[in-house]
């Protein structure tokens, strides 16, 4: 997200990949395990307008620090030294822009290998670079994503090229979109002054919790006890917490109050945004005795407003 804010990106919906891409690169992503349907629906065996033979019409490259179960679906596997994504991407940008790095290899990858890959990108009808948590959650964080987007923009001077994050976590894209149209920012929004302020590193949840700033937490469909660094998660145990979740999780076990709610797309209809920002209408397939997830929130806010009003009147 921060990388996108810094420079933008060349992107498209997944149907473009299905219909046109003849070169697909996965970088720091293991779709065979993290996104098992991605390959058949969009990026691997999917048949499309220019890819009538599906898998045979695509060249697939996997870049990662170790072989993963996705390797067997790729035509080429490039193993790089852990923590060297930025360096390798920088070398690829140099090669794209016509400069050869003055070294034989970078991040344990031979320059000739990168040269071949860059040439494939330049020759592609549509090249796509999908990147995963191996890029975003490793040392360098948004700098790595930034290097990916910059590579995509450099390559766009030579061929049609897309750079797309392998977003996960169900409807994280929808939550980012909604935050954005209501506040202008996709995450790390602070309403403390009565209007939205944004400052990742200060208002992002990990930083707030590490500083022990929050004195209460309302957690909706998130699993901080499992996902956050120990130090941050630890603070949640010391403050009152309310959790809305359809399932039992580490976080619900820790919470002071748990409000079980219906699961959007399972027990209540709703809308979820796909990783390429296309909203999909979700149907309900099971019954559930619990309320819809927005009902407790509406009730709470109505009650707070009523209390405020009573206070103002007395």
């Amino acid at each position, binding site marked *: *997200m921060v990388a*996108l*804010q*810094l*420079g*933008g*990106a*060349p*992107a*498209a*919906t*997944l*149907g*473009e990949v*299905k*219909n*046109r891409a003849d070169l697909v690169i996965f970088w720091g992503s293991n779709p065979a395990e993290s996104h098992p349907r991605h390959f058949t*629906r*969009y990026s691997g065996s999917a*048949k*499309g*307008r220019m890819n009538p033979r599906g898998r045979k019409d695509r060249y697939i490259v996997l870049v990662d620090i170790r072989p993963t179960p996705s390797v067997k679906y790729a035509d080429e596997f490039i193993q790089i030294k852990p923590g060297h994504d930025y360096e390798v991407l920088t070398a690829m940008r140099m090669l794209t822009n016509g400069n050869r790095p003055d070294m034989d290899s970078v991040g344990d990858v031979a320059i000739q290998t990168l040269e071949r890959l860059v040439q494939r990108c330049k020759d592609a*009808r*549509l090249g796509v670079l999908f990147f995963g948590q191996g890029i975003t959650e490793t040392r360098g964080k948004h700098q790595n994503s930034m290097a990916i987007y910059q590579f995509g*923009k450099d390559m*766009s*001077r030579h*061929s*049609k090229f*897309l750079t797309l994050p392998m977003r996960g976590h169900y409807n994280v894209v929808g939550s*980012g*979109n*909604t935050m*954005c*149209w*209501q*506040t*202008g*920012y*996709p995450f790390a929004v602070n*309403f403390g*002054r*009565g*209007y*939205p302020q*944004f400052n990742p590193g200060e208002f992002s949840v990990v930083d707030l919790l590490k500083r022990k700033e929050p004195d209460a937490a309302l957690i909706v469909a998130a699993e901080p006890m499992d996902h956050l660094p120990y130090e941050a998660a630890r603070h949640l145990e010391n403050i009152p917490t309310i959790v809305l979740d359809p399932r039992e999780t580490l976080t619900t076990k820790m919470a002071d109050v748990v409000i079980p709610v219906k699961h959007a797309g399972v027990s209540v209809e709703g*809308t979820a*945004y796909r990783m390429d*920002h*296309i*909203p*999909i*209408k979700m149907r309900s397939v099971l019954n559930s005795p619990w309320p819809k997830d927005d009902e407790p929130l509406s009730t709470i806010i109505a009650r707070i407003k009523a209390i405020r009003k009573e206070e103002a009147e007395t």
Partner: protein
Amino acid sequence: MGIRIVNGEVIDPAHGEDRVKRDVHIKDGKIVADAGQDATVIDATGCVVMAGGVDIHTHVAGPKVNFARLMRPEDHRYEHVSREDGYERSGTGGVAATTYTTGYRYCEMGYTTIVEPAVPPLGARHAHEELVDIPQVDKAIFTLLGNSEIIFQYLEKGETSKINEYISWIMDATKSYSVKIVNPGGANMWKYRADIHDIDQKLRDFDTTPRQIILAIADAMATLGLPHPLHLHCNNLGVPDSYKTAIATAEAMEGRPLHLTHLQFSSYGASGKRKFSSEAPRLARMVNDNKNITIDVGQVLFGKTTTITADGPFEYHLHKLTGSKWYNGDVECEDGCGVVPYDYKRKSFVNCIQWAAGLELFLLIDDPWRVYLTTDHPNGAPFITYPHLIRLLMDKDFRREQVEKISAEAAAEIPLKVLDREYTLYEIAIITRSGTARRLGLVNKGHLGVGGDADVAVYRASRNWEEMFAKPAWVIKDGQVVAKEGKVTRQVFGTTMYVHPARGFADIEKDLADFFESYYTVNINNYPVGLEYLPRPELIPCQVKA
């Protein structure tokens, strides 16, 4: 209880009323003949009373607008609205403001209806989700169809009746009000990193041309009786000699109704030392001579903004030119978009020509019913600059002062410097509400006749037109006072207007199922946007000619 606005001067061009001293009666959300004895009286002494503003073209919702918000946190930093200031919902401003802020700001300028004109069909659900969060105004979207591969396939086979059926289906599937075409064929060619430069150029993979695309869609829209005609962003926009493409496009229509949007961006020639000139006078002549054509201007005003358009290749061009951030978003089978920040500078020769060209279009098109006030928000400037633009049109001394501030080289070349016309209040009312409402086919809007929607703006008369239009004394939406002295006083929600053409689509059902199965990544059953996404739907009837 009703409202009676007394002692004001009514400007209602739809009924030929120019500063007529009469009362306006409001009851049950409508303009009525008599609001009754118990009506609340608004004393509009010293004020002019107009219908609420109707913006025919403003990018306020949907995927690419949200990318513009996302990509520029710096745009939101310096402006916000908060509950402390009396607003129900907080938000941030900047040129790509948040949804609630957008609704409040339009309302505070006296606007009560807005149209988001560029939504790819796959983005319609997203756009409607945002419209739900835009208060104070009635809303509608136009669907982008100028790069639709389904239409291209039918064009190749010459199956025009199936195009009619498809457009009928897609209007319903996107809960849309009309059709917009952006750079016909160009976004499709951009999927090969190419563009279209001539209306008779063939696409790479489809045996068709922009001319065929435009005519087929315009004819289908006429057959279906859509209330607003084809809304067109021409090929070759934004580059020298773009005016030639605009003229060729207009001629291609051979008298069919056409709305050319943000024509300013298509009004450039290649003459002069810098090979960049304003050909606005030529385009104004073309509009004057062709009664089938209306335009909105897409005025450029100086300052920082964000450009947002479905014209993907143009945004890449702009990115290369400026080195700015760039977002590109191609949409499968349908269209594309781009987002690039831009700063219009007084010292830039090109920007000054653009600024002047827009004003020249306003001043040289004779019939105000066929030229509408827009900035192609936020492409030329954010919509909050409308009051300033109105002053530029109404006050020639002010305009002359502004010309003196621009690049001297540009000032020497622009036709604007010899134009003395000043818009009257009556004409401003036409280009900001009566004309736009009429062209949109909204019979209940843009006028103050009995039966009209009670959307009213009361402006305190002043010689400083900018101040006058920035802060209306009262704004009434659906019969309720919602803003006073340029400040929202009550949060309300307007309707989302859409059409439902009568034409069935039995002949294309199988084609659509096959096409979706082959080329889309969304199941056809999950594709249509249902009415559950429109909390306040308002069906506007189609007018099929016998």
